[in-house]
């Protein structure tokens, strides 16, 4: 056991450069694209990217480092479908350790990527359990708009952000109603007004079609420099006086209005889901993603027809609120069966820290296949729902979430079937870099593994 650990460490030390080709062979390989696992598969990575993966035989270049994964499982790293990972270290009564909800004057303009701390214990704990990327949404504070969310990696370095301002997050269900003064109708008026205010500023933004001429000079007229930027530059960005949002917030919604930025909408109730789908008629450019959707199965056909993807809680089955009366663990399976593009997120479920539970939840959806009357998903679909599917829902399927050639080399070697909570991540690679799996927790285990008194106090065991 110890010998193997040392060997593994030496291997890691031998691979300091990402230019090294690494072949992980002999394991059960699952690609994360919905296909079923492949026995005795191989994954080849180089320069931080996947070169090849599957049951193929390929000639490996000389000097390839071979990692023996016999008896192990190899999958893409888990992509936490909806989270607040990196925004808080401690959730309750710990001043300075929680950035997940901003209650200041800004809303839509808030950029979650500026608050991510890659050294939070939560990131290490999830990394050590095979979560390599996370979709991170800021929580709505005073407004229905939480702000702009990011995609991050969980690597042990100081560059956590994969994509900033990837999406805008808005609450249009019960929480939205609360933020808007107590009713859903009020939330919808607030939402439409916000997009109206954005529309006013749209004229300062570049068009959606590729620009042909030279870039306008901000000294001559105000502009949104970057379509994903939340600021209008220039001295003369005029607005009508009939406004509720700050200029920053209104400008941040311009890319949403233009369909350049995804709009993640949290709703649970069937009627709220239909209202959100209806927004597409009014604002055809919106790139909607439904978040939550506990009652989605009751209107699954309409969601499927709309083509709007869903990030749902996997195992909510309680009428926890009056907007989740029809909640069932079959929600995801039934939506998928109806043709909805659905993935798993942690909505209001320890979303700052327990993202590692998504694989257990995915396994629970597989279990439903053997419950009469329930609708489960296959193993391959379940894995895709915590890897490629959430990535695809925000347009990043070509970059993360599967072991297709060219994808970022985020992968995990597991002790066994990763959809069993009892399995553990043994090696984790992010962008091809082997990651440390030590955490605050593993250090505490070492310290307190044996309790008998020694020559010095526990504080000296480090």
């Amino acid at each position: 056991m110890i010998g193997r650990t040392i060997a593994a460490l030496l291997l890691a030390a031998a691979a300091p450069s990402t230019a090294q080709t690494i072949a992980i062979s002999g394991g059960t390989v699952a690609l994360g694209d919905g296909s079923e696992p492949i026995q005795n598969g191989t994954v080849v990575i180089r320069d931080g990217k996947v070169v090849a993966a599957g049951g193929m035989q390929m000639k490996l270049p000389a000097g390839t480092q071979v990692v023996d994964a016999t008896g192990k499982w190899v999958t893409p790293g888990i992509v936490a479908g909806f989270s607040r990972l990196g925004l808080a270290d401690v959730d309750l009564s710990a001043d300075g350790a929680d950035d997940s909800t901003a209650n200041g004057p800004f809303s839509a303009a808030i950029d979650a990527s500026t608050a991510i701390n890659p050294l939070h214990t939560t990131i290490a704990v999830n990394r050590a359990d095979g979560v390599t990327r996370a979709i991170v949404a800021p929580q709505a504070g005073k407004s229905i708009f939480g702000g702009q969310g990011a995609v991050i990696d969980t690597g042990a370095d100081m560059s956590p952000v994969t994509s900033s301002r990837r999406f805008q997050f808005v609450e249009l269900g019960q929480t939205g109603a609360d933020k808007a003064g107590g009713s859903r109708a009020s939330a919808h008026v607030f939402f439409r007004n916000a997009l109206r205010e954005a529309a006013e500023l749209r004229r300062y933004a570049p068009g959606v079609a590729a620009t042909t001429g030279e870039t306008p000079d901000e000294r001559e007229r105000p502009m949104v420099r970057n379509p994903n930027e939340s600021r209008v530059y220039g001295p003369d960005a005029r607005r009508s006086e009939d406004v509720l949002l700050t200029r920053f917030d209104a400008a941040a919604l311009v890319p949403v209005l233009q369909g350049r930025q995804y709009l993640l909408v949290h709703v649970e109730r069937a009627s709220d889901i239909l209202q959100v789908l209806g927004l597409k008629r009014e604002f055809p450019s919106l790139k909607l993603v439904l978040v939550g959707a506990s009652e989605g199965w009751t209107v699954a056909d309409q969601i499927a027809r709309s083509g709007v993807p869903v990030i749902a809680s996997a195992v909510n089955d309680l009428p926890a609120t009056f907007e989740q009366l029809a909640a069932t663990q079959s929600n995801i399976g039934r939506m998928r069966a109806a043709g909805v593009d659905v993935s798993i997120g942690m909505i209001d479920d320890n979303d700052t820290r327990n993202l590692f539970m998504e694989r257990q939840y995915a396994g629970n959806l597989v279990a439903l296949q053997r419950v009469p009357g329930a609708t489960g998903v296959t193993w391959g679909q379940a894995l895709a729902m915590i890897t490629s599917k959430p990535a695809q829902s925000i347009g990043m399927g070509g970059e993360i979430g599967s072991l297709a050639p060219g994808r970022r080399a985020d992968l995990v070697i597991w002790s066994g079937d990763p959809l069993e909570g009892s399995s553990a991540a043994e090696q984790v690679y992010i962008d091809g870099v082997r990651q440390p799996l030590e955490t605050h927790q593993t250090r505490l285990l070492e310290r307190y593994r044996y309790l008998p008194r020694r020559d010095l106090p526990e504080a000296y065991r480090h």
Partner: protein
Amino acid sequence: MSNRLFAVLAPAALLTGCAALNPPPKPAPAVHINEDPYPSTYVRYPGVPTVIRHATVFTGDGQQINDGTVIFADGVIQAIGSASLPSPAGSREIDGTGKFVTPGIIDIHSHLGDYPSPGVASLSDGNEATSPARPEVWAEHSVWPQDPGFSRALINGGVTTMQILPGSANLFGGRSVVVKNVPARTAQGMKFPAAPYGLKMACGENPKRVYGSKGSMPQTRMGNIAYAREVWIKAQAYKRKWDKYYAKGGDMPERDLAMDTLKGVLDGKILIQNHCYRADEMANMIDMSKEFGYRITAFHHAVEAYKIADLLAANDICAVMWADWYGFKMESYDAIKENIPLVHNAGACAIVHSDDPNYIQRLNQEASKALADGIRAGIPGLSEAVAWEWLSRNPAKALGILDKTGTLTPGKMADVVLWNGDPFSDYSRPEHVWVDGAEMYDINDPKKRPVSDFELGQPGEGDVK
């Protein structure tokens, strides 16, 4: 001086003398107060004699029987053993090939019914946060038997018994109630017959936050301890008064509901169920129990139990734990995934709990994670059969009902789950659940699935959940 004293005493002596001529009436014999004024009305439902064969059986007390047979009838376990056990005449035979039989799971820490679904303010009945000491409140008077969560715990979780506790806002939160997971019109109808009461106590962050934010005591951990000690001092005086009354009769002392509960603890009749995360605070609570002469049965949410597993073992106190929750508050910051197996390894009593209407549906999976983490850490003597102790035997012990349920032992209540696969796998589900031998769930029969009043006529009524 002495003369004067005599002068004063003389009339008294005369009076005494007079009284001696008419002896004082004997004190009235003590009237014992009713300690069970809201008694259980639970009556087991009818079942048929049932034999499960060819299953893997976890007995709940550490044993595994392969190709095992479990027989129950008349509400109780009749026999467990190998394939050769004969069936009673007329019994229902179930082929358990590839399946697993376990005792029903016991969740020692639940708020079903007192924090029910839907989680709206009008149904929020778990914390009487109006004083740090509210031992006079009883959780059973908050339990809403129509909480849909009970059914999920039964059909998805295989939970047959629960302790419903008051919340942890208070140092003394009130009495708990142990219930059978059988739907009823009243809480009394669910109440586990003859189960002792528990008293919920709490250390740490919650009481000091709740009352500190109101500007009243306690607002510190030292305030927590001081306040609790003051209460115990009163409780001891109350107990002395009543002990004297019960011994000698006379005028009945004035009753105090809060003190009744604490006296029950000091008498050893009510079990202390103590919410306490941190190792140092558990040690303080142990000393407090010794100072006032009561016993702590279990520390709940004991995320730092691994730091003092030896102390817990020496004091025969159970630790009630999650598998991997961590960091949601400062007192859970040092949670580690090996907590449960480390406590077990130290010879202390380890228990897996939920404190949550969702996690209660997957306690077997929580135990599975803890078991796997323990094995990976090299902790010896662990197995699935041993880990099942964390789910039924140990919680039964900590609830004072181990003589009635918690293991598959002949004569005990037939609280039994047949799983459609290894319950330590995420892919397995309860297929049948029996409580006192009555089949309360059958995965193949939609009519054998409880539907609460709240859900009738609502979207999703009677659905698989």
